[in-house]
């Protein structure tokens, strides 16, 4: 009973949105890449690197602006390296992505130690975070105000990005070109489009979005960098992207689904279930969900067929 009460509380829903933010940002990045026909497995690493450099640059620069520049900048650098190896040197995308993830773990700890002398977290640094925003009118609506207002700037930015990504992919020439390149690169090159260039842009855009997701972790969700703080969110974002069939709205919905179970696992800890079991839930739920979805689909197809045979 208490679990249900917990879930229905405004705090839970507020937290749910908070947890969803980094997954959503990275999932949108993954969506842009996958539409353009690039599998970017390096999201996890990009998030980790940008979360560290955001913190470091804001501490060194002495304000949030430099933190923003550092976080997005580092994500861009890594993305450009990925794009160069994958697109120009024709290296396998899976390998490049895995390399980024592996390198990121070591690199962040190394740089963290150089900067702070510690290997665990950046609490000794005075770094800056993105502020929370109270939305004037909405804040005063009873329950809704508590849920929708007072989130981090990046959370609102993430929601805005869903719209921006939608417009980009479906309403602009660049989006059309990306979709063409993703589905049939020959069709694009045969009318004079530069496939490498378009994919490069997609990877860079993905880097920016993913970098924002990483920065949210260390400059919003928490206010310091902790080693390995991404904890699989990059991979969850990839899953959310494909579960959402690589569309912006789909990415939003599936990010929310993942985040819900993530939040639920927090609540369920009250029940004194083993924490490993609880942490498994989001993944099990996804698999079960997808299985039910496809079974239903095939049942419906069969029913239709039977109707036709009978008729």
């Amino acid at each position, binding site marked *: 009973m208490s679990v249900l009460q917990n879930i229905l509380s405004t705090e839970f829903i507020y937290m749910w949105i908070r947890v969803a933010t980094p997954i959503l940002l990275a999932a949108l990045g993954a969506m842009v890449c996958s539409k353009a026909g690039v599998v970017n497995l390096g999201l996890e690493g990009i998030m980790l690197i940008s979360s560290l450099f955001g913190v470091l640059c804001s501490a060194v620069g002495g304000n949030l602006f430099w933190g923003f520049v550092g976080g997005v900048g580092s994500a861009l650098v890594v993305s450009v390296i990925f794009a160069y190896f994958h697109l120009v040197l024709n290296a396998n995308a899976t390998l490049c992505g895995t390399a980024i993830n592996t390198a990121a773990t070591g690199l962040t700890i190394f740089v963290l130690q150089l900067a702070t002398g510690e290997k665990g977290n950046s609490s000794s640094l005075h770094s800056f975070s993105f502020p929370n925003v109270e939305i004037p009118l909405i804040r005063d609506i009873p329950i809704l105000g508590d849920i929708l207002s007072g989130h981090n700037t990046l959370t609102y930015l993430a929601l805005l990005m869903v719209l921006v990504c939608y417009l980009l992919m479906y309403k602009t020439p660049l989006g059309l070109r990306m979709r063409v390149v993703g589905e049939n690169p020959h069709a694009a090159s*045969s*009318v*004079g489009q530069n496939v490498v260039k378009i994919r490069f842009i997609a990877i860079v855009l993905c880097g920016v979005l993913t970098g924002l997701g990483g920065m949210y972790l260390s400059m919003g969700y928490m206010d310091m960098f902790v080693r390995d703080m991404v904890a699989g969110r990059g991979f969850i974002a990839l899953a959310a992207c494909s579960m959402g069939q690589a569309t912006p709205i789909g990415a939003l919905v599936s990010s929310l689904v993942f985040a819900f179970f993530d939040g639920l696992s927090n609540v369920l800890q009250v029940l004194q279930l083993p924490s490993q079991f609880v942490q498994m839930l989001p993944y099990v739920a996804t698999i079960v969900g997808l299985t039910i979805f496809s079974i239903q689909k095939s049942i419906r197809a069969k029913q239709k067929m039977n109707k036709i045979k009978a008729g």
Partner: protein
Amino acid sequence: MAEALQMKNIVKVYSNGVMANKDVTLCVNEGEIHALSGENGAGKSTLMKILFGEEQATSGEIYVNGKKVNITSPQMAIGLGIGMVHQHFMLVPSLSVTENMIMGVEPKKGIFIDRKYARQQVEEIGKKYNLYIDPDKKISELTVGQKQKVEILKALFRGAKILILDEPTAVLTPQETAELFEELKHLKESGYTIIFISHKLNEIKELCDRITIIRRGVTMGVHNVADVSEEDISRLMVGRDVVQKIVKDPAHPGESLLRVKDVKIVDETGTVYVDGVSFSLREGEILGIAGVEGNGQSQLIDAITGMGHISAGSISLRDKDISGASVRKIRSMHIAHIPEDRMTTGVAASLSITENVIADKLSWKRFVRGGVLRRKEMRAYGQEMVDAYQILCKSQDVEIGSLSGGNIQKGVVARELSSEPLVIVANQPTRGVDVGASEFIRHQLIRARDQRKGVLLITSDLNEVLGLADSLIVMYEGKIVAYIQDVASMTESELGTYMLGIQKQSAAQIKEALHED
């Protein structure tokens, strides 16, 4: 007359060392339809890709409207007013006609695509050139003929004045071809220059003004089409006389091999593709299936070969029911299948010729010992196939996708005919294959028949079906409308009346196709 285009002494060596063009010269006049002919692998597509900037010539010069140019990208070629319709479609199936057309030259309103204007432009250009296609349809919903139109419109939309058409008719039905020719003639009258590639010599005679012939990467000469006969053209192409007429002994059909009974095929949306079709394929005969494309033939073939389902009825091989069986099961019962679309279901393009021809023979002891492949044996077999089927390639180890279109087709035919089949389902077996090689493939099919195998032949080439098939069924709107026991007595025009549904045989006559007594 002004020369629209000149390509002089073009040499092209691919990075893998294949010399596709040794010395090719092509001059095209403004406002003419110029045919480019040559065997499979002669270097036609390569030459056109060079002109369109997709490949760079190793040496040679190109002049467009008298000016020397160096075309380094398709973008540049488009800028010079050159448009190309490729041998294999360059379309995005999940996008609409409009999106495919405007891609790269999108009309804009601010930073967004101006959809309304784009749609209107697409509609207008279609009407202007008599090539109307619904702008909102998805490419995947179009027929092959309509896709071809979209490809041509795509080029025109980008302002092409010189149109390259690389085997545009290979995938079209005779009706669609006739329609396309009308449209091309119309374009020619409006001042467009067209380069036309085809292996069908009668088409060249009908449509083109002049012809350039290439053999093994070297130009063999330019002729006025009116001055040369089809025999002359094929001799120049192949270097020997080609017998265009198909010669074979009368068939002596025996027992029934493949029996299709009351088959009905319906999809989830309720569309009926095949409606109560019954026939039987006997050993020692070539049974043709004629019909305008889209009258259920594809679905029927898919069902027979295990690639599609049936909703009612039965299909059996020597009294063993095979309806609904898997492709693997059906193949293991010795039914071979030369599929219609070689690029999607015929080959694995990035694998070698060897790997492609043994793909269905992995259970042969010769190639596997103790679960491990025997490379040496495989390669030797690959070489055998390349020699036997005259596949033009550097070696049996090259990617099959890098071969010319016709040679890829020969690879598919080689694999299927060498699989010790009982029944051969040949769907457009000579599509895109040159005259010499078509002759060869047809001979192989006749030989298989003489060895008491059954051949089910589906082709949109009327000459082929009339010349090769012993007996014939005609399909119209999912039903058999005629069964002709002796094809020799049939004329093309009579066949046409059945195909268009103008004439229909009696139920008793059609029932004979089943050979049930």
